[in-house]
C-alpha cells in the first residue's frame, strides 16, 4: 500500500496491517484453506519459542542448589509458580512430570508472543517492507491459527490423559453415560453433550486468547492512526493513548498467558477425573 505513491487511507492501513504474510502471496480468500500457511506466524512463534526456551535452558543448565543468580532466581520463581498451580490442580505426580513443563512452556511462550504487541505496530512491518516483504503480523497469538493450534494441542493432551487414566473402554463408556446417566435412551444425548463440551472448551480456549490479542493489536493500530494525522492533537493523543494502552496491555498480555496456562491445567485436570 505504501508503494502506491499516496498515503494509505485509515481503512487501507488497518487492512494492510491485519493481512498475514502467507504462502499464497496475497490475502487469503476463503475462510478455511489448508493449502496456505502463514509464514509470519510460524516464523515469529518458532523464533520466540526458541529464544525463550534458550534462555530457560541456560538458566536450567547453570542451575545450582547454592546461591542463585538473579536470572536463575527469576526463572525459579516462574517454575515455582507453575509447579504450585499444577500441584493444586493435577493430583497425579506422574502426569505432572509432563503437564507442569507443558504449563510452563505455554505460559512463557504465550507471554513472549503477546509481548510482541508492545513493539511499535509499524516497526517490524516497515523494516520488512524495506526488504520487499509486503505483509507482516508480528503477534502470533493474534492469529487465530496460532491460538487455536495451541488450544487443540491442549485438547489432544486431554484426550491422551482421558484414555491413559480411564482406559479406552472406560473413556468411551463415560462419553455415553455422563453427564445424564447410564440409560440407552440417554446415550445419544450424553454423547452430543460431551462433544459440545470438548468443542466449546477448545474453541473458547483458543478464541479467548486470540480475541484479546487481536483487539489489543487493533487498538494499537488505531492509536498509530491518531499519530499518523501529523497534527499536534494527533501527536499528543498518540503519546498519551499509546502510553496508557501499552501500560494496560502489560497486564493483558500477562493475564492472557496466565489464563491460557490455567485453563490448560484445568482441562487436563478434568481429563483425570471421572464423572
Amino acid at each position, binding site marked *: 500500500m505504501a508503494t502506491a505513491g499516496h498515503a494509505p487511507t485509515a481503512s487501507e492501513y488497518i487492512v494492510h496491517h491485519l493481512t498475514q504474510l502467507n504462502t499464497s502471496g496475497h490475502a487469503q480468500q476463503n475462510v478455511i484453506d489448508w493449502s496456505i500457511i502463514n509464514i509470519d506466524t510460524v516464523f515469529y512463534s518458532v523464533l520466540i519459542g526458541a529464544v525463550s526456551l534458550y534462555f530457560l535452558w541456560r538458566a*536450567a543448565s547453570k542451575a545450582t542448589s547454592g546461591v542463585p543468580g538473579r536470572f536463575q532466581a527469576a*526463572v525459579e520463581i516462574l517454575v515455582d509458580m507453575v509447579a504450585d498451580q499444577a500441584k493444586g490442580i493435577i493430583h497425579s505426580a506422574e502426569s505432572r512430570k509432563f503437564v507442569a513443563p*507443558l504449563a510452563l512452556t505455554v505460559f512463557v511462550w504465550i507471554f513472549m508472543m503477546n509481548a510482541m504487541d508492545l513493539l511499535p505496530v509499524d516497526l517490524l512491518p516497515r523494516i520488512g517492507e524495506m526488504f520487499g516483504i509486503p505483509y507482516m503480523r508480528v503477534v502470533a497469538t493474534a492469529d487465530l*491459527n496460532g491460538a487455536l493450534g495451541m488450544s487443540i494441542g491442549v485438547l489432544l493432551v486431554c484426550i491422551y490423559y482421558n484414555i491413559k487414566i480411564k482406559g479406552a473402554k472406560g473413556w468411551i463408556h463415560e462419553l455415553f453415560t455422563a453427564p445424564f446417566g447410564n440409560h440407552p435412551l440417554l446415550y445419544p444425548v450424553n454423547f452430543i453433550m460431551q462433544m459440545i463440551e470438548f468443542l466449546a472448551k477448545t474453541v473458547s480456549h483458543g478464541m479467548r486468547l486470540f480475541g484479546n490479542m487481536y483487539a489489543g493489536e487493533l487498538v494499537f493500530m488505531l492509536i498509530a492512526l491518531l499519530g499518523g494525522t501529523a497534527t499536534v492533537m494527533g501527536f499528543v493523543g498518540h503519546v498519551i493513548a499509546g502510553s496508557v494502552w501499552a501500560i494496560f496491555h502489560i497486564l493483558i498480555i500477562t493475564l492472557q498467558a496466565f489464563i491460557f496456562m490455567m485453563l490448560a491445567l484445568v482441562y487436563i485436570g478434568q481429563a483425570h477425573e471421572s464423572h
Partner: protein
Amino acid sequence: MNLNATLIAQLVVFFILVVFTMKFVWPPIVKALDERAKKVADGLAAADKAKADLAHAEKKVVEEMRKARESAGDVRTSAEKQASTLIDEARAEAGRIIAAAREAAEGEAAAAAQRAKEALRDQIAILALAGAEKILRKEVDAKAHAELLANLKQELQ
C-alpha cells in the same frame, strides 16, 4: 482471521517446545529447587541443634560455676576453722608456757626466799649462840646444850 495450515504448524511447534521444556528445562530447575529446599531445611535443623547445644552448655557452665563457688566457700570456711583452731591452740600453748614460767619463777623465788630465810636463821642461831657464849662463856657446853640450841633454832623458825 482465516484458518489454514498454520494451525497444524503451530500444533507441531507447541509439542516440540513442550517436549524440550520437559526434557531439558524443567528437571534441572526443579532438582536445584528441591536440593536448595533440603539444604535450607538441613541448615535450619543444624541451627536449632546448635542453639539447643548452646543452651545446654550455658546451663552446664552455670552449674559448674555454682559448684565451684560452693567448693570455694567450703574451702574458706574450713580454712577459717583451721585458722581459728590454730590460733586457739597457740593461745592455749602460750597460756601454758606463761603459767609454767610463772610457776617456775614463783618456785624459784620461794626457794630462794626459803634459802635466804634458812641462811638468815642459821646466821641468827649462830649469832644467838655466839652472843650466849659470850655471855655465859664457859658455862655453856656446846655439846651438852646441843639439844637446847636445836630447840632454840627450831623456835626461831
